[in-house]
């Protein structure tokens, strides 16, 4: 057995975890992580059967050892990849079983350890024709499902991204992501199929390049969340916000005006109402960007309307969309009606009540 550095694993530790390193056939080619005695070992045991080996099989396992408290998810693909590479090398040129080439393992392991710890990436030259490249990739959480009425907005300046690095679909829709167009609209204007747009945006969401907000209309209603106080507490959010919401070409808006505007958003108040009540504060503030920023940072939240059909005739069909599960945004998107049309239709129906949340 070869160890780099020599002393890191004690004899006792190895004895204890031996069964997880050189394993029974049922566990081969599985990624095994075992925690014992304050250390975590990640490995992938491999078995190659061939008559040429003594005992007709070669068993090996290249593993990584860390402190027990380390989060090791990112290391797993590396261990798996290495085991794959070594298997190929062995099958092609007997890399591990050959006495001579076996000596190269120790320096390779040293390089691996050093470079991964230093930069998170490493290049391992094996011989003239083979090099292994490895990189630690950050694990991210699964993204939400993107609905057709969601609006993607860039979290950083769009120009920071090298467009050619993205896939064709994303490149095609990039120009249409402006923080105001919703998915359905992007699909129509960019002439890309709806599901592809959803997937592409979900991909961008996964990498934190965009975040989702709701459709903007002057009839929308918002209210503040407890997070709105962060505008007062956090200097960096203040700076970012004031820069973001100030009208182009104007002197920077002052904190008091912006905070008053956010606090002016209450249930029952539309954006139109806000504009007429706080016209003085809005002289230097773009209300659309104000709302956009507020939603992105969760300083405010949107109050959506949900129609519910509470009474109906025995003979009529049960409600499909007016169940309290579908918001106006969703219904309008799905049926093609405008808000105004939907409002008029529902206002005249005594069986339907509307909940805001």
């Amino acid at each position, binding site marked *: 057995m070869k160890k780099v550095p020599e002393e890191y694993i004690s004899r*006792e530790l190895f*004895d*204890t975890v031996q*069964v*997880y390193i050189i394993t*029974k056939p*049922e566990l*081969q*080619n599985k*990624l*095994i*992580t*075992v*925690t014992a005695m304050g250390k975590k070992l990640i490995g992938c045991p*491999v078995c190659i059967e061939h008559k040429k080996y003594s005992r007709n099989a070669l068993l090996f396992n290249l593993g990584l050892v860390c402190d027990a408290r380390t989060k090791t998810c990112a290391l797993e*693909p590396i261990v*798996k*990849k*290495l085991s*794959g*590479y070594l*298997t*190929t090398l062995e*099958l092609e040129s007997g890399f591990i079983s050959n006495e001579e080439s076996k000596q190269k393992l120790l320096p390779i392991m040293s390089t691996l350890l050093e470079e991964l710890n230093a930069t998170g990436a490493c290049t391992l030259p094996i011989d003239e024709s083979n090099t292994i490249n490895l990189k630690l990739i950050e694990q991210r959480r*699964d*993204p939400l*499902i993107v609905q057709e009425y969601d609006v993607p907005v860039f979290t950083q300046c769009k120009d920071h991204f090298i467009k050619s690095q993205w896939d064709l679909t994303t490149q095609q829709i990039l120009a249409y992501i402006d923080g105001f167009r919703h998915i359905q609209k992007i699909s129509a204007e960019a002439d890309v199929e709806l*599901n592809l747009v959803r*997937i592409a945006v979900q991909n961008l969401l996964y990498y934190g390049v965009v975040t989702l907000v709701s459709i903007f209309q002057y009839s929308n209603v918002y*209210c*503040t*969340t*407890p997070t*709105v*106080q962060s505008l*007062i*507490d956090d*200097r960096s959010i*203040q*700076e970012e916000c*004031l820069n973001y919401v100030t009208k182009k070409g104007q*002197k*920077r808006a*002052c904190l*008091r005006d912006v*905070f*008053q505007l956010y*606090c002016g958003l*209450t*249930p*029952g108040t539309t954006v139109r109402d806000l504009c007429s009540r706080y016209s003085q504060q809005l002289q*230097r503030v773009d209300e659309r960007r104000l709302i956009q920023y507020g939603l992105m940072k969760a300083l405010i*939240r949107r109050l959506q309307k*949900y129609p519910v059909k509470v009474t109906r005739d025995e003979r009529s069909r049960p409600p499909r969309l007016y*169940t*309290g599960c579908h918001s106006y945004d969703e219904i309008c998107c799905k049926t093609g009606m405008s808000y105004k049309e939907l409002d008029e239709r529902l206002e005249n129906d005594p069986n339907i*009540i*509307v909940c*805001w*949340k």
Partner: protein
Amino acid sequence: MATKQWETTLGERKSMYKQSENSFFKRGEKTSPISVILVTSGSRGNKLLFRYPFQRVADCTSSLTTKQRSPYALNTTGDVLEDPDGDSREQTPLTDQQLVAGFSDIILATILATKSDMCGKKFELKIDNVRFVGHPTLLQHPHTIQVSKTDPSPKREMPTMILFSVVFALRANADPSVISCMHNLSRRIAIALQHEERRCQYLTREAKLMLAVQDEVTNMTETDGSPQSPFRQILPKCKLARDLKEAYDSLCTTGVVRLHINNWLEVSFCLPHKIHRVGGNHVPPEALERSLKAIRPYHALLLLDSEKALLAQLPLDCSPALVRLIKTCSAVKNLQQLAQDADLNLLQIFQIAAHLVYWGKAIIVYPLCENNVYMLSPHANISLYSPLAEAFGQQFPGHDLPSMLAKFSLPLSLSEFRNPLDASVQEAQLIQMVVWMLQRRLLIQLHTYVCLLVPPSEEEPGLLRDEELPLVARVGGRSLSTPSALSFGSPTSSDDMTLTSPSMDNSSAELLPGGDSPLNRRMTETLLASLTEHERQVILNIPAAQSPEDLRMFARLLHYFRGHHHLEEIMYNENMRRSQLKTLFDKFRSVLVVTNHEDPVISLFQSPLE
């Protein structure tokens, strides 16, 4: 048995989309175990005594007959060529059953029954997409076994058990706090089993039964060839097997486990992740704990079950303080009053309240009173067909939930709600409805928060100067922690605040009664000293500031105007009436910004149950 085709993720974005759609529905299962397994190690080697859920019979036999590896294991040659990146993340989501079913009894016994030096500590092993967690426990000192091995006497000892482990299998991507909780449960069961083993060899007896059934079934399979699961046969015969099954079932459903090991020792446990959820995601225990620490004496405890039901759930030897608290608590009574009525000190009340909240038996609210303003919670399920709607209809015949909830679309105070436009509904019933909705986290309460923001001066308008730095950066925050706040006057849950006489007023350093005495003026000056020159000027120029009384009150309350203390808290701490405060805010409105939102401290408790 078909071998799985592995799809590469590169370029296959559609499968990723599907995967996240599947995982959306499977999110709840991240907090459930996949399997529970009991293994032992002893003089007869490593044995798997019991596992639940049972394997499908087909998997059972195949592992015995052919030299077959699990159908879900990677093929050495095949996949290395196809998938050079060796990305271990699952491409096609396997069901939970398939994840663990692939492991035979024998291999599980080998990997889960550890060496004795891993005993007494958390055991964690991850194999591809399954994570095993347990707490291997030593029953006997290994040396005793060694002695009997070297002893050549023909008298054979009874096969002895050295160690055992109750292991839970989880999905590999389970949250670390879930893994920690499962380990905790494994440890608790182990402690109980160890105790019973020492007292009356309970575990050895159960193990003997289990192994006997396993042997019997193996024999039967060999003779008449009909495959059966031995574990199914074990269930009716072994109480321990039934206990483990019950633990598994409870963890997957309610998250509350109550076992009676050997009908004697009670093991109780709850998985907070199942009990406390916000919009589909569990509340991390750390967030829960932080919120519990921030409860104030003016909060109230709202029980989620009826008093009778709750008392029936308590064990016989529970603390009498708990019983007293449950009997005395009410939604209109704050914790301080509860302490007085139940004859317990406040610290005890806090501890018991936290305990009840942790177990999902109660939530923290602001005590019900006329001026409370409620609004529909963003997480509320307002669907026509939800089980909540049905339950509401049964509890309050003639009324439907969505119509009631629609009333709270705009913030509504309790007094406005009680104003019966519909005279047929009794007031008492309306209050019951609100309590019902609060218990099911359908409503959130809004509070008023105030922030001091002075209009900027004329020079260099629009630039962020130091004056606009938040007050908190300049003034050291004065935190009002819980028990010490007790000395601040006596609050009432209703709005009927009686002012204590000034000599008893000890909320801030006010020594003399009203009037424009030099001492009072000094006091005001000191309090205002924390402001910048510009701020002070603006405030002093306000017409209301000409009244020394008003200015003094303003200065005294200055440290609350950072947007972190709501109206009711100021009322409680400073022994003031709502009307007084509102008037003050109005007088100084040119430098104050007011907003309404939920209290972040208790909004955690206003999350809905699944």
